[in-house]
């Protein structure tokens, strides 16, 4: 794609939105769109420009079965991903277990102390959300095992061919350091390298960018930064 030809890009975006860009050209343009935030914006612009043409068409009430179909599809979708509730349940169970262990501790047991240490080793890192939207991810750190846990809470879905990537922002002139890909749903855990661990320890903030599938190919953010959040150690 010749990214230095804005008029060509704009013309293709217009024909894509119009629907007259077809076949292999349409598929190729969709790939370029997935790779370039700039092209995506041009498509959005043309969508916004032309959509008024479709606003005046006579509305047609859908059959009742349509809503039933939507509910069923969403039910299957939710069932196929680790739902938030299912992620939270183990936490509730852990708390109950901790309480039980504390009770047992009255009788005495080193095991209790071990469990408590486990629980205390989990520290919040960041709550990632838009200016007005819900929390999208909760980031936690298992200090004891130097592992990062990212929990998807609001069903963020990257565009096809893209991934969300988390970055530590050490501040000053230091470059962002990747902390890995974020999940669209459910949770991901990974052990941090020493470099990642140090960068996160120094970071005042973390950020999320949209990257090609699998993460930035350069080691630095290449896509738009979608979210920035305070590192909770500063809170």
């Amino acid at each position, binding site marked *: 794609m010749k990214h230095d030809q804005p008029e060509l890009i*704009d*013309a293709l975006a*217009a*024909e894509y*939105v*119009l*629907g*007259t860009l*077809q*076949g292999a050209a*349409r598929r190729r343009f969709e790939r370029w769109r997935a790779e370039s935030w700039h092209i995506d914006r041009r498509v959005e612009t043309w*969508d*916004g*420009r*032309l*959509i*008024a*043409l*479709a*606003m*005046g*068409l*006579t*509305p*047609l*009430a*859908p*059959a009742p*079965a*349509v*809503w039933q*179909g*939507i*509910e069923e*599809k*969403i039910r299957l*979708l939710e069932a196929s991903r680790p739902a*938030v509730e299912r992620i939270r349940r183990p936490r509730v169970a852990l708390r109950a277990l901790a309480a039980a262990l504390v009770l047992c501790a009255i009788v005495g047991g080193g095991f209790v102390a071990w469990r408590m240490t486990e629980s205390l080793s989990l520290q919040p890192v960041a709550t990632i959300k*838009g*200016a*007005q*939207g*819900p929390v*999208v991810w909760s980031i936690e750190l298992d200090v004891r095992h130097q592992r990062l846990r990212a929990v998807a809470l*609001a*069903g*963020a*879905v990257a565009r096809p061919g893209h991934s969300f990537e988390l970055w530590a922002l050490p501040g000053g002139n230091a470059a962002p350091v990747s902390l890995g890909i974020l999940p669209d749903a459910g949770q991901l855990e990974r052990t941090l390298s020493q470099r990642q661990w140090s960068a996160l320890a120094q970071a005042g903030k973390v950020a999320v960018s949209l990257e090609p599938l699998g993460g930035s190919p350069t080691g630095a953010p290449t896509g738009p930064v979608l979210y920035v959040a305070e590192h909770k150690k500063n809170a």
Partner: protein
Amino acid sequence: MPHSDPQNADAELERLIGACAAHDRQALRSLYDLIAAQMLGCMVRILKRRALAEEALQDVFVSIWQRAAQFESGRGRARGWLMSIARHRAIDVLRSERADLYREADVNQVPEPAAEAAGDWASAGRSAAALARCFQELTGEQRRGIELAFINGYSHADIARVTGEPLGTIKSWIRRGLASLRRCLET
């Protein structure tokens, strides 16, 4: 359904999209009640077959449920964002092999855009006023080509068949029409 107060209507749609991002199923139902009929009107026009359009409409609402967190609020374009998802889905289905089974038989049976297709500028928000003004600056052929493509989902070849003009002429109408629109909208 066009709303008497576009700004309030858009604010309500925006609020509901935000609630969908928080996994509020009732909000999705409310969104459906507000806009599904308008979406289906647009999608049937493109897909020609109601059953095909209703199936695609289901995918649209599943997509809204999944993508609600990505909507950038505060830009006053909730209706446009929702309608674009519906329209793109209809175009995707139309261009798929499955829809090809239907299209050839149907394309000559669909009425040309009538007065209703001239755009509902009021319900489309502020940017629509600019489009209305710029649309009037196009030639009749350019307007017709763009409307047939956007509203009916016609390809260049479909438009050539309907109008009886050569394919190259149709491509030129549309290309020049879009370029004129862009120049007009950016000044």
